[in-house]
C-alpha cells in the first residue's frame, strides 16, 4: 500500500516542477492563451512565413492536437503556458527532422506570444534544431 500511495504522491509532488504536470491532477490550472508566428530560415538566410506551406509540406498536416496545428490564432493553453511552450518547441524540432523533401530550410523560428492568466503578453522566441544538410 505504501509503495502505491508513495508512487501516487511522488507524481503529485513532481508535477509542481514539471511544465506538463502529468499525473499530478492539476486540471484547469491556467486560463493562459497563446499564439505563434513561424518562419523557416533558409540556407541562404531568407525568412519565410510557413502559414501557407513550404516545399510541399503544411504545418497542420505534420502537427496535430492541443491547438498546435493552428498556432497562428489565439488559443487557450489548456495544460498551461509552460506545457504549451515545451510541446511547441518539440513540435518545431520534430518538423525540422521529419521533412526530408525540404532541401532549402536551415531551421525554423517561432515567436510565441503568451498571456498568462490575463496578465501582460510576453514574447517567447523559439528556434528548432538545425536541419541536417
Amino acid at each position, binding site marked *: 500500500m505504501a509503495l502505491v500511495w508513495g508512487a501516487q504522491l511522488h507524481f503529485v509532488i513532481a508535477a509542481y516542477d514539471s511544465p506538463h504536470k502529468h499525473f499530478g491532477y492539476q486540471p484547469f*490550472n*491556467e*486560463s493562459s492563451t497563446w499564439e505563434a508566428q513561424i518562419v523557416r530560415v533558409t540556407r541562404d538566410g531568407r525568412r519565410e512565413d510557413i502559414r501557407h506551406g513550404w516545399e510541399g509540406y503544411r504545418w497542420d498536416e505534420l502537427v496535430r492536437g492541443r491547438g498546435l496545428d493552428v498556432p497562428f490564432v489565439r488559443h487557450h493553453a489548456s495544460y498551461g503556458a509552460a506545457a504549451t511552450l515545451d*510541446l511547441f518547441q518539440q513540435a518545431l524540432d520534430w518538423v525540422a527532422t521529419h521533412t526530408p523533401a525540404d532541401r532549402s530550410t536551415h531551421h525554423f523560428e517561432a515567436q510565441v506570444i503568451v498571456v498568462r492568466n490575463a496578465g501582460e503578453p510576453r514574447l517567447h522566441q523559439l528556434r528548432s534544431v538545425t536541419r541536417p544538410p
Partner: protein
Amino acid sequence: MSASSAKAGFFERRINVRAIGLLRLLVGLITLVHLGPFLEAAVPGRYFAERFFVPFFEGFPVLSVEGYRRTLLVGVGAALALSAGLFTRAAAALTLPVVSFNVLSNQLHFGHNRAFLMTLLFGLALLPSGAAFSLDGWRQGRRGTLPDETAPAWQLVLVRGLACTPYLASGFSKLVDRDWWGGVVMADRIARYRHVAEGLGVPPALIDPIASHGFNAVMWKIVVLTELFIGVGLWFRRTKLTAMVAALGFHLLIEITSTVSVFSFLGISALLLWVRPAIRERVLHHRPADPSSRRVRAAVARLDWLHRFELRPVEAAELMVEDVDGSRWTGRAARRLVWSRLPLTAPFAAPLRLVDVLRRRLWR
C-alpha cells in the same frame, strides 16, 4: 488489541465488494467510450505516429499502424469483457495495459481524465469484482456455487486512497496558486467564453453577476475548499454523505461548464468505491397491508442491486427503516433513505437524504 494484531486483522479482514462489480461494469463502458475515437482514427489508417508525437519515455515502443490498430481492438474486446464480467480478472489485467500503452505512447494523448481512468482500471485489476453484475457470476450460479463477493479490505482502502487523490491534488494546487485562489483564472475563462453563453441564449442579467469580480473572488474559493472537503470527507462516516453529494454537484458543474471527456462519468461512477462494503445492513420494515409500503418494497426488491436492505414485513403503523447506526426513520424520511441507497435513484435522492440527516443532527 495490540497494534500488530490490529494490523494483522486489517490485512486479513474481508469485505463485500458487490458495489465494485457495478463500478467495473460502468468503467468498462467508459473505457469503450475512451478508446472509441482512437480506434475510429486508426481503422482508416490515420496513425498518430505519422505526425508529431511525444512518447512519455525515451525508447518507448512505437508500433506499426497495423500493430496499433490490433492493440486498440484488443483493448476494446477487453473493455467489453470487463464490463460484462466475462473472464473478469484477465479482462481487467488486459484493459489496463492497453489503455496505459495508448496514453503513454504520446503525451498529446494525455488527459487528467485518462490518468483517472488508468487509476480506476488499476483498482479493478487489483480488486476481485467478477462475482456481481457479471457473466462470470452468472455462470458460477448456474453451476450451483455461490459467487464469492468478498475481497481483502486493504485492497479497497488502497484504491480509495488513489481515487480521492484527484480531489486533494487538484484542490491543493489551486489553494496555493494565487491566481486560482484569487479568482483570476476562472474570471478570465468566463470573460473569454462569455460569447458562447450569449450565443446559447443565456441572458446578460445572469452572465453579468457570474462574470463580476466579487463573484469570482468568492465562488472559486468555495469550489477549491469543496474539492478538498470531498477528498477528506469521503473517509469519515459522519461526512461521507455530504462529501458524496458535494462530489455529485461538483462533477455536474464541471460537465455543464467544461469539456472534460469521460471525467464526470468516471468521477460519479467512482463514488461506488465509497459504498459501505457490507450487505443487508439496513432493515426495511414494510407493511404488506399498505399499498404505499408495498410499492417501496417492490422497488427495493427490483432496484436494490447492491443489497443494502433486508426486507421485513411488520404490522407497524408505518413504513420504517433501521439504518446501520441503529437510527430509525419513518414516513417520507424513510423513503428518502431508501431512494438514496438504490443506485438508480441515489444521485437524485442523496441530496434530500442529506437534508434529513442534517436536520436531525441539528435538532438533537
